């Protein structure tokens, strides 16, 4: 199933991140100069003041990039979510087959207690435990 993505939006998100990265590269060249011990103090102060809007702008472009990314990935995310739901159903169905066998085992276990020619109170004592197991397994199957 090919996702229907607005290619222009995809370019917008990538474009914003590229812009942010370019601004951060420029900021790095300012930083090198500021942290260089040979740069005069007055220049450092001036460069520091000039560098602030560059970093702010990079941050803004990143925000816009994230915003565009969430819009452009909306369709793939919805499709993946639906695939996740379907996979959960498949897993549940496979699990149910095992549960059906467990329930059959529980029933045979109860029958084994009740079908003996002479029922003794001692053997009957295990019944509540067996019925509880059956109840749990049926509950698991229903859930």
């Amino acid at each position, binding site marked *: *199933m*090919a*996702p229907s993505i607005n290619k222009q939006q995809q370019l917008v*998100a*990538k474009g914003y*991140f590229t812009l*942010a*990265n370019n601004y*951060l*590269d420029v*900021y*790095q060249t*300012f*930083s090198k100069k*500021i*942290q260089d011990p040979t740069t005069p*103090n007055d220049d*450092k*102060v001036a460069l*520091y003041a000039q*560098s602030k809007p560059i*970093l*702010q702008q*990079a*941050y*803004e472009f*990143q*925000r816009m*990039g*994230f*915003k565009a*990314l*969430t819009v452009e*990935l909306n369709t*793939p*995310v919805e499709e*993946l*979510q639906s*695939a*996740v739901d*379907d*996979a959960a159903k*498949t*897993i549940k169905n*496979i*699990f149910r*087959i*095992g549960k059906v*066998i*467990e329930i*059959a*085992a*529980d029933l*045979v*276990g109860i029958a*084994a*207690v009740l*079908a*003996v*020619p002479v029922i003794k109170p001692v053997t009957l004592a295990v019944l509540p435990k067996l019925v509880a197991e059956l109840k749990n397994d049926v509950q698991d199957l229903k859930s």
Partner: protein
Amino acid sequence: MLLYNTFKLSWFRGFVITVCFLLLAGCANLETVRDFAKQSASLASGSEAIDYWGKWGERSKRFDVVVARLPPHSGKKPEGVFGPITVPTKDEISAIKALQSVLSAYMSKLGALADDNLTDVSKQVDGLVENLNKLPSDMPEEKLKKVNTAYGTIIKLVKLPLEVYRHYEVRKLIQDNDENIKLLTEGLSSAIASLEKFSEQEKNSVLNWYEVTTNDYPEDKNFSSAYQWEKDRASIIQTYQGKTAALESYQQALRTISASHHKMAQDLGLFDSDSFKRLASSLVDARDQIVSAQNQYRKAFE
């Protein structure tokens, strides 16, 4: 009659063995797919980098201690570290995290479906056989046990078509969603790559501030203040230690997830042993890379 029965039994047994062999030959062990998917799910669930990015303003307050120590200059206290004026809203942060969580949920379900224990009905059948043996019967005990074990073996055959069905579903899940996984992982990877750059430049921003502020507000020039200056600087660098490298590994791991998923989409249909062995070996490598990126990431952002 006895000969006929024996022939019928051996023919049936032969048929069952052949069917089992054919079915199992088509069902490669998916544990490498399961391990790769589970580790990918775990990696994708880590959204600390997004929180970290959104809280730069809060983080800059860590340096208030240094600001407080600097003496006022011409009656003015030094400014704090420059942080972004606007911050992402809660909804924006949640929308970004949702991209990661859907990737994590997908990988987690793929891992569960690829888990070979999912179709293992043997334990349940053993319980059934055990209870069957307890039922009263006219048959001699030894014979009864043999018959019940035979029933159990037949019921265990349920596992085989289930296994084929599960392999079909794993393959379908991967092939149907390959394009979406590619878009999602590549989009997230570009975003994390940009955060990686941002983390490095945040360190520079703090160091720039420290450089300019300590020049504007010099402490007394003595040994102890020089020592304090170096100590503060080292502590600032320490704060950012490992974060850039961890984000680099994280975004590379996302690209590995995309490439490995694509490889599975192409090769998982080929269950001949050679191609599956190659695929399994590349998935083991991918899993190791993802685990290492995850450890690095957790250490850096814990």
